[in-house]
């Protein structure tokens, strides 16, 4: 098997409480088939025990370990070192954007979780409704007696990448709007309509599609926002003609 070992340099964002931010550099040796999260864990285990970072499942189901790797949002547990650097190469590791930093690589995502909860977004859905709207469905996918954990792992990377979230902290953000689309596969509820059909909701999106580009989990928030706009407009038109 592959016993290659690379020497790489990790330049990691550091911040403790309100102290000054800085970057710290660590040199480690690692098999390039390991993942960026493994490299960060190695830095913590052998070089600096004060480094804080968030992680849990190490296989892209929990969504805890999203970070910026060389400036781009990556789920570090499934990003192989080989795919983002080379032998004697560098890795720049920073916390996600558009969330307050608690320390080092840990950000406060509570606002996102609160909004997702308000939407009423469930993590478990029937198999047909857990698929994307355009997906070719096999016979298996039609079987509504099966259920599965949905695609969105609530990592916050789409919010980090979104240029509108960067400039407007009131914007609900792609994760929340995508969840609203997911939650509204049944007829649109007034509650969801009120949340998304607002100044800080659907109409604030600039169609940059950065969210869909960085999503590690096939959620396609950009597409879902556009689909949701269609649904809301259809709803408005229907309402216009149904007025007595």
């Amino acid at each position, binding site marked *: 098997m592959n016993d290659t070992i690379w020497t790489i340099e990790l330049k990691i964002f550091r911040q403790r409480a309100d102290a000054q931010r800085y970057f710290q550099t660590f040199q480690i040796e690692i098999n390039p088939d390991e993942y960026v999260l493994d490299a960060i864990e190695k830095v913590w285990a052998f070089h600096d025990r004060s480094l804080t970072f968030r992680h849990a499942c190490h296989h892209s*189901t929990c969504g805890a370990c999203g970070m910026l790797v060389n400036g781009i949002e990556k789920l570090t547990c499934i990003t192989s070192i080989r795919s983002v650097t080379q032998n004697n190469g560098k890795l720049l590791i920073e916390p996600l954007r558009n969330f307050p930093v608690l320390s080092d690589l840990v950000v406060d995502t509570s606002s996102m979780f609160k909004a997702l909860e308000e939407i009423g977004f469930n993590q*478990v859905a029937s198999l047909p409704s857990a698929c994307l709207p355009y997906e070719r469905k096999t016979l298996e996918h039609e079987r509504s007696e099966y259920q599965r954990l949905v695609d969105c792992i609530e990592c916050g990377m789409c919010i980090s990448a979104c240029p509108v979230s960067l400039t407007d902290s009131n914007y609900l953000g792609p994760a929340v709007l995508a969840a609203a689309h997911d939650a509204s596969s049944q007829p649109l509820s007034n509650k969801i309509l009120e949340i998304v059909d607002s100044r800080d909701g659907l109409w604030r999106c600039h169609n940059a599609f950065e969210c869909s580009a960085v999503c590690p989990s096939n959620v396609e928030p950009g597409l879902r926002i556009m689909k949701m706009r269609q649904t809301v407009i259809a709803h408005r038109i229907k309402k216009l003609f149904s007025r007595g």
Partner: protein
Amino acid sequence: MPTLPEAIIIGAGFTGCALAHDLSLRGFKVSVLDRGEIASGTSGRTHGLLHSGGRYCVNDQEAAIECIEENIILRRIAAQCIEYNGGLFIGLNERDQAYLPHFMAGAEACKIPVEQITPQKALQLEPNLNPALLSAVLVPDGVFDPLRLALAFAATAVENGASFFPHHEVQEMLFNGSGNAIGVVALNRHDGKKYEFRGDIVINATGAWAGKLASLVGIKVPVVPTPGIMVAYNQRLVNRVINRLFEPGDGDILIPQRRMVVIGTTSFEVEDPDYIPLDQDQIKQMYDCACHLVPAVSQTLQRGVYMSARPLIKTEMTGRSLSRTFKCYDHKESENIDGFVTITGGKATTCRAMAEKTADLVCSKLGISAICETKETPLVSYRKFFWH
């Protein structure tokens, strides 16, 4: 009004979170400290199998009975993070066929509702199975999201008054004049300052790290970190958990999760579970095992690989056995240190039961008569953990 008993739990994995939930319901004021966050250690890295007990119904029926009971309870209280499609045990050779009658008898003895179906029917249900299968048995397996299950216990504990202190690394234990534990000193890794936490009981729930933590105060806990590898592939090829119909072994469980399948696992001992390098030979071994159960794995891409360190207990040592699957050490009995308890071992499926038995022990030590209510208490949304 009498003051509430205070418990300090070290470790926010499944055990720590479930115990915080249990003790909070029993009226304790609970503080949970972890040097990382919720489920940053072994708990987060489980494969996520909600055991039906089938895996153990021949070799360890006590564990199997515990699994099926907890399986039913968790499906009731934590449905928010469980995909429940059942599982299959499949036999692929004569060896497996010879095991089948033992399996069926074991399942019946443990009251696990199983159903033998024909290979043809199994292939209808799961078209990607190895078509050479000789036998198939349906079992009530499920799959949970590891972080969200731990968070759901933690969120419910918080709703009932518990406090969680993530990124707080315990550095010293505090003792009173008689040498009994009365609290801990922890380093807040966010601000670099040390804080004192005092309580009536300190519970070491650090799992694979329990020995390391106990050694802070010169106590030996016979826990051996025993990692196993898990490999995730990028297609959901099955909807049920696929188990090899044989005694527990390497690479014998393939579970679906979101859009993936995950195969596990192996077993070897390490001294320090803080960083376990990925073993490339084991990755290949898992790939071969996965392809044997579901050949279409060969048409997928590897999505992730991880190592998870089980807390295995060296059984020849002393210690109060609450069950064969996990152990609770009252350090008053072994080292004459009162106020300090270690709980370790066990598996994710039985975390609630572990918490119940540990809380029973804590209550009897402190002379409290509160009873366990966790079987009937549905967990609140895991997301609530984040905004308290």
